[in-house]
C-alpha cells in the first residue's frame, strides 16, 4: 500500500514536472546507436570519413555509430534511405558535393528543405593533375596545347553533369578552349587513366590522390580557388588565371529536416569536439583539406546553400 502510494505520488510529480517544462518526457539522446549512411561504396573518400567519424565520435557520444554503405544513383539511393527514416536523429548521412550538384539539375529527388546539415566535416579544393612524367610542366603549357589542338586533350572526370563537368565547362568558356571529358565512375580507373597515359589530365581533390602526390606519381597544374594553398604554393589558382570557378569537394553530415533542434545541437556539439581532436586535425592535413574546414550546425546550412548557388551559377553559364 505504502509503495503504491509512493509510486502514484511520484508519477503525479513527474507529470507535473514535465507539464511545467512543457516538453515530452524523453530519455537523454542518444539512447541507441545512430546509423550513419554512406551513399557511396566502401573504400572511397565519403566512406573513409564516415568510418573515421564512427571511430572518433563513438566515445564522445556514448553510443555506437554503425556505418551503412548504400551506394547508387550518385548518392540518391542512400539519401532516399535517410529521408524514409523517422526524423529522430537516429539516422544520419554523409552528404557530399557530388550528390549536392544533383539539386542544381532538373527534377532533383530531394531539396534543401528535406535535409538539415549538422556539420560540414571537410572541404577540399579541386585540382587539375597530370602524371609526374607528363609533357605539361605548367598550366600554361596545357592551355597552349589545348588552344593549338581544340578537342584533343583528354581530362578524366567523374562524369557528365558532375561538379567536375561544371568546372571544366567554366574553363572552356572563359578561355575559349575545348577539351574531351572522359568519364570514369570508378576512382581507380580514373587515376590509372592518367598514370597509364590514356588521359592527359585529371580533375580531382588532392586528398583523394594524396598517395600519388607523396609517391611522386602525379603533380598539380591548377587549383580551383581564390587563393593558392600553402601546401602547393607553386600551383596557380583558377581566379588568378581569370577562371571564375571554385567548386570544392565538401563532405557534410546531414539528418532529415524536422529533427528536433536539441538533437541536432547535441550531434553538432559532439562533432565539434571531435573536430578539435589531434587525430581529426591530422586527418584534415593528410587530406590536404582547408584547415578551417569544419563548420558546426550554426554555419553548415548557410554553407551548403551557398555551394548550391555557386553550382547553379556555373551551370547557368553553360
Amino acid at each position, binding site marked *: 500500500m505504502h509503495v503504491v502510494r509512493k509510486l502514484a505520488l511520484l508519477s503525479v510529480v513527474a507529470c507535473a514536472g514535465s507539464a511545467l517544462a512543457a516538453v515530452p518526457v524523453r530519455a537523454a539522446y542518444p539512447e541507441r546507436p545512430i546509423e550513419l549512411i554512406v551513399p557511396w*561504396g*566502401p*573504400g*572511397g573518400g565519403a*566512406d*573513409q570519413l564516415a*568510418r*573515421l567519424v*564512427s*571511430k572518433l565520435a563513438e566515445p564522445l557520444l556514448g553510443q555506437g555509430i554503425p*556505418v*551503412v*554503405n*548504400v*551506394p*547508387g*544513383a550518385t548518392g*540518391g*539511393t542512400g539519401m*532516399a*534511405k535517410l529521408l524514409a527514416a523517422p526524423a529522430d536523429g537516429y539516422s544520419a548521412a554523409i552528404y557530399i558535393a557530388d550528390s549536392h550538384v544533383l539539386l542544381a539539375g532538373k527534377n532533383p*529527388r530531394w531539396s534543401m528543405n528535406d535535409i538539415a546539415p549538422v556539420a560540414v566535416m571537410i572541404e577540399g579544393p579541386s585540382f587539375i593533375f597530370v602524371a609526374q612524367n607528363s609533357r605539361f610542366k605548367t598550366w600554361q603549357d596545357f592551355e597552349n596545347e589545348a588552344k593549338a589542338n581544340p*578537342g584533343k586533350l*583528354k581530362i578524366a572526370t567523374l*562524369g*557528365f*553533369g558532375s561538379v567536375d563537368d561544371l568546372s571544366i565547362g567554366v574553363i572552356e568558356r572563359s578561355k575559349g578552349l575545348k577539351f*574531351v*571529358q*572522359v*568519364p*570514369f*565512375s*570508378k576512382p*581507380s*580507373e580514373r*587515376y*590509372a*587513366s592518367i*598514370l*597509364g*597515359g*590514356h*588521359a592527359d589530365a585529371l580533375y580531382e581533390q588532392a586528398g583523394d590522390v*594524396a*598517395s*600519388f602526390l*607523396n*609517391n611522386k*606519381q602525379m603533380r598539380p597544374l591548377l587549383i580551383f580557388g581564390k587563393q593558392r594553398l600553402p601546401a602547393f604554393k607553386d600551383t596557380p589558382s583558377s581566379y588568378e588565371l581569370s577562371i571564375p570557378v571554385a567548386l570544392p569537394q565538401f563532405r557534410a553530415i546531414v539528418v532529415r529536416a524536422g529533427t528536433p533542434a536539441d538533437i541536432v545541437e547535441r550531434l553538432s556539439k559532439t562533432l565539434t569536439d571531435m573536430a578539435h581532436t589531434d587525430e581529426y586535425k591530422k586527418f584534415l592535413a*593528410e587530406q590536404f583539406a582547408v584547415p578551417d574546414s569544419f563548420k558546426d550546425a550554426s554555419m553548415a546550412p548557410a554553407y551548403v546553400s551557398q555551394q548550391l548557388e555557386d553550382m547553379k551559377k556555373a551551370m547557368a553559364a553553360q
Partner: protein
Amino acid sequence: MIDIVSQLADGFVHCLTPLNMAMLLIGIVIGLLIGVLPGLTLVMGVTLALPFTYKMDVTASIVLLTAMYVSGTYGGAFTAILFRIPGEPIDVPMLWDGYTMGRKGRPAKALGWTLVAALGGGLLSAVVMVALTQPLARFALRFSSPEYFVIVMFGLLSVVAIGRGSLANAFISMSVGILISSVGVDPVYGTYRFTFGSPILADGIEFLVVMVGAYGVGEVLTRLETGFATKPLDKISNARTELPTLKELKEIKGMFLRSAVIGDLIGLLPGAGATIASFVSYGIEARFGKRRDQMGTGVAEGIVAPQSAATASVGGAMVHLLALGIPGSGATAVILGAFMLHGIQPGPQVLVKSADMVYTVFASLFLGLALMCAIGYFAIRPLVKILDFPEAVVSAYVLILCFIGALSIRNNVTDLWLIIGFGVLGYGFERLKFPIAPLVLGAILGPIAEETFMNTMISFSNDWTVFFTRPISGTIVALTVTVLLLPFVQRLMRGVWRGL
C-alpha cells in the same frame, strides 16, 4: 632477387607471431563462409570486417583482409559443386563441370580438384607477385577502355560459344541479361532507362539479384517441381576427400599453368577482377584445351580452369594495389581503405618504406593458401554429408541463405521480390532449355561493357577502329575471332568430310 628472398624470409618470421597467425586463421574461416553464402560476396565480407581492424595493428589488419579475400574465391565452389548454387559470381563456371562431376557420383573428387586448383593458382600468383611486382604493375597500366571492352566481349561471347545446347538460345539468354543490366540510370549521360517512373528501378538491378534469383531460387523451384525427388547419390557419406593423383595432375599441368597466368594477368587490371578471370579462363580452356570436346561433362579441366584463375587473380590485384596504389578489384578497394585508415599510402614507395609490412603480407598469402587448403581438405567430408539430408530440408536452408544474401546487397526489401522474380525466370529458362549462365554473365558484364565502350568512343572521338589498331586490344580481338569462328569452321569441315 636474393634481396627479395631474404625479405620474404623475414616476412615469414613476422607472420608467425600469434596475432598475425590468429588473424590469418580467422580471415580464412570467415572468407570461406562468405564464399559459401550466395549473395554475400567477398567484397561485402571484406567491407563488413573493415571496422574490426580500426584498433588493430596495420599488418594484422591487412593480413586479415587479404586472407578473407583469398579464401573468399574458394568457398563458393562448395555450394556450386554440391547444390548447383554459385556462392560467388566467380563460381558460375564451376556449375558446368564441377556440379556435373558431383552428379556423376564423385563430389569429393570435384572438391579435391577445386582445392588443388585454388592452391596451385594462388601459389603461382603469389610467386609472380613477389618476384615481378613492379614490371607487372607497369604493364597493367597500358590497358585502357578499348582493351577492357574487348576482354569483356571475349568473356561474354565465349560463354555463348561454349554452351552445349542451342547457340541461338544462349545468345537470347545473354541478350536478356544485358537488357536487365541496362535498367536504371545510364552510367555516362545519366539518362533514365526502362525505369517506368519507379525509383526502385532507377537504381538499376544488381547482378547479384539476378544470380542469386536465377540460380538459387530457380534451382529450388526446379526441385520443387519434381517433388524433391532427385536421385540420391550412392554412399556419399562414405566418400573420402579425393585429391587428384600425380598422374592426373601431370596430364593437365600445361592448362593449369595457363589458367593461373590468365587469372594473375586479369587480376592485375584495375577494370577486371576474379569473375572475369574465371570466365575467360574457362572460355579459353573450352576452345583450346586438349579435351575441349568433353568440357561440360564433368572433366577436371573445367574445374581447374576457373578456380585456379579466380584465386590467381588475387595476387594480381594485390600487385596493383601495392605497387601503384590503385585497387584492381572491389576487395582491394576496401583493403586500400584499411591502409589509409592506418595512415599508410600504398604506391611505389611502400615497397621500400614499409617493406616489412609488405613482405609480411606476401608471406601471409603463402601461409594462408596452405591453411585454406588444409581447412578445405577436412571440411569436404562433413560438407558432402549434407547431401544425405532430405532435399526439401536443404532447399529450405538454401532459400533462407538466398534471401539473406539478397537483402545484404543494399539493404533493400525490393531486392527480395526481385530474386523471387528472377527465380521464376531462371526456372522458366531451365524448363525451356535456355542456358542460365549467359543471362547471369550478361547482367554482370553488361554495365562494364557499356561503360568501357562509351569511354572508348568519347576518348577516341567515335573512332571504332581503335579496338583493332591498338596492339593489345587487337591481339585480344584476334583471339576472340578465332575462339568464335573456329568452332563453326570445324563444324563445317566435319560436315564436308562426312559428305565425302
